[in-house]
C-alpha cells in the first residue's frame, strides 16, 4: 500500500499531464475513470486497493450497489471537495464549500437524494453521508406524517383508530406542523 502511494505520487509529479486513474464499474455496467485522489475519498475503494496487492491500474473495480445516476452525483461532490482541498490544503474555504453544497443539493430530487444516501453509505464516504442525512432531515423538518411516509416510501400499517390514539398520546409533538 505504502509503496503504491509513493509511486503514484512520484509518477503524478513527474508527468502532471497524465494523472493516475481508477476505473469503477456501476451496477448498470458503466465504467467511470476517476482521478486517484478523488476515488480515494471513497473508503470502500481505498480499502479495496489497500487490501489487494495484486490489483493494477487496469483493474476495474465493480460497485454493484451503486447506480450510474448516483455515481455521477457522488463524483461531482468528491471532485469539488478535492478541488477545494487542492487550492487550500490547510483549511477548506468554509463559505465556498457551503455555497457549493447548497447549490449542489438543491438540484437533487428526494428520490435522487435517497439513492445517493444509499450509495454514500455503501461507498463509505462519511463526510458526504453526514451532509446528505442532514439535508434529508431538513427536508422532512416540520412536515406532516403523510409527507414523511411518502418521502421514505413507507406504507402506513396502522388502523385509523390506532393512528388516532397515537396522535393523542404524542399530542405534545403535534404543534406547529407545516402544510405539505
Amino acid at each position, binding site marked *: 500500500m505504502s509503496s503504491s502511494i509513493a509511486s503514484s505520487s512520484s509518477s503524478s509529479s513527474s508527468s502532471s499531464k497524465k494523472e493516475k486513474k481508477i476505473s469503477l464499474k456501476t451496477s448498470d455496467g458503466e465504467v467511470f475513470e476517476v482521478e486517484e485522489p478523488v476515488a480515494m475519498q471513497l473508503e470502500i475503494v481505498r480499502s479495496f486497493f489497500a487490501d489487494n496487492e495484486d490489483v493494477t491500474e487496469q483493474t476495474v473495480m465493480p460497485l454493484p450497489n451503486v447506480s450510474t445516476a448516483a455515481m455521477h452525483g457522488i463524483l461531482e461532490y468528491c471532485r469539488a471537495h478535492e478541488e477545494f482541498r487542492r487550492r487550500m490544503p490547510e483549511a477548506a474555504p468554509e463559505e465556498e464549500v457551503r455555497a457549493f453544497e447548497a447549490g449542489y443539493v438543491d438540484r437533487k430530487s428526494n428520490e435522487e437524494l435517497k439513492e445517493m444516501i444509499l450509495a454514500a453509505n455503501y461507498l463509505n464516504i462519511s463526510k458526504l453521508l453526514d451532509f446528505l442525512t442532514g439535508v434529508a432531515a431538513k427536508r422532512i423538518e*416540520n412536515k406532516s406524517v403523510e409527507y*414523511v411516509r411518502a418521502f*421514505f416510501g413507507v406504507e402506513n400499517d396502522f388502523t385509523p383508530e390506532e393512528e388516532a390514539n397515537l396522535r393523542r398520546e404524542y399530542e405534545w409533538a403535534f404543534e406547529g406542523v407545516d402544510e405539505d
Partner: protein
Amino acid sequence: MGVGVDQDAFEWRVVDSADSNNGLVVVFVVYGIVRSLPFDILMQIVTLIGPKEAARMSLVSKSWRSFVSDNRLWIYFLQNQTEPWDSTFFAETMLRSGYPIQTYPTHMTELSYMHIYGQRSQVPGSVIIDGGSGYCKFGWSKYACPSGASATFLEFGNIESPLYSRMRHFFTTIYSRMLTISLYRMQVKPSTQPIVVSLPICHYDDTENAKASRRQLKDCIYQVLFDINVPAVCALNQATLALYAARRTSGIVVNIGFQVTSVVPILNGKVMRKVGVEFIGLGALKVTGFLRSLLQQNNIKFESLYTVRSLKEKLCYVAADYKTELLRNTQASMEVTGEGQYTLTKERFQTGEILFQPHMAGVRTMGLDQAVALCMDHCYAAELGGDDSWFKTVILAGGTACLPGLAERLDKELHKLLPPPISNGIRVIPPPNGADTAWFGAKLISNVRYLTAKNISSTFPGPWCMTKKQFRRKTRFNLMR
C-alpha cells in the same frame, strides 16, 4: 429492531403470471422507493430532526414506531437539554413518585425515555425562589440558572421569622424584580405559575416547641403565597434541596449559611431530627468579617465589604494542613474593579481556617469537622435503616462552602477524628452548583412530571405540592381542633 425496518419494506411475493411459461414467477415487491434506507441511517436522520419531530415519526408505521421509541435516542435528546443528564436521570428515578422518597429507585429498564421526554416537555414551568439567609436566588425553572439574586438580609432583614408583613414584602418584591428582568419572554405573575420555595434550616431541634416554630414559619410562607394567588406551593428545606442537587436522597448536608452553619442528616429525603441537627454559630458573615479584620491589621485599605467579599471568593482557600501552609509562599494578587490591585499572602488560607479553628476569630464553638463527626457518630449510633453508610456522604452547600480545598480538608479531619468503622467510605462533595446549589435542587423537582398529575397539566406536580384549596382545608381543620 434494525432488521425490522428492512423486512417491512421488502416482501417476496409469489404471483401467478399468465404470460410466463413457468406458471409461477417470483416478483420482488418493494413499497415506495427502490430500496429502503438502512436502520442506522434513518436513526441518524431522526437524531438530526430533534425530539418533537422524532416523536411525530412514530406515526409513520409500526416499524418506525418501534425504532423511534428506542431509549438510546431519547437519552441522547435528554442529554442535550439544559439540565445535565445525571440530574435528569436522578430526578426521574428517585423524585418522580414524590415524598416520601422510595427506598428503591424505579428501574431504568422500566422507563420509556420517549414518554419521559414528552412529559417533561409538558411540565408547566415554575418560579423558584431560594431565600438563602445571605442571598436570595430566584429564577424560572426552565432556564439553565437563576436569573438574579438579592441580598436577603441587608434588604429584607431576617426572613426566618414568621412575620407576615415582612414575608409578603419579600415575595412581592422578588416577583416584581423577576418581571423587570427582560429575559422573561413570558409574564411572571404569581397567579400563573406554581412556585418552589426553600425553607430556611432553623428550628430543627426535636422538641414540640421547635416543631411549632417550624410549622408557624411554613404556614406563614404558605399564607403569603396563597394570598398573592400562587396556585401551588412546594416548600422544601434548603438542606434537602442541596442534597437533591447532588443527586442523592440520603447523606449529611453541611450548609454554611449567612450567620449559622448547619449539619443536617437526611435519610431518604427526610431530615433526621431525632438523630440531631448540629449548628455552629459561624457563617459566611463571620468568615468575611474575619478577612476584613485581617486586612485592617495588615493596613490593607478597602472601600466596602464587597471588596472583601470579592477577595474571599477569588483568592481564599482552605489549607490541607494549616501548619505546613504557614511555611509556604502563598502570595497572590487580584484586581478589584474601581479599587485597584490587592495582594494577599497568609490571609488567603487563614480566612477559611476559622471554620476548623473558630477560636482564631474569637468564637467559642466547635469546629466544622467536630460538628460533622459528632453528627456522624449520632447517625452511627442511631442504627437507622439496613445499611449504615447512608450518612457517609457529606454534601457541602452555601457560598462559603465553595472555598477551594474545603472538601478535601474536611475529609482529612473526619478520618482523623472518627474510628475506622465510621470513617471508612466517607466522601465529602463540594457544592454541586456552587452558591446556587439549593436553587438547582429545586429545579430538579420542578421539571419532573409526576405520575399522579397526569390529567392536570395546567396545575403542578401533585405529591410535592400544596394547593390553595388543600391549604385552606388544612388550616380550617387545625382551627377546629
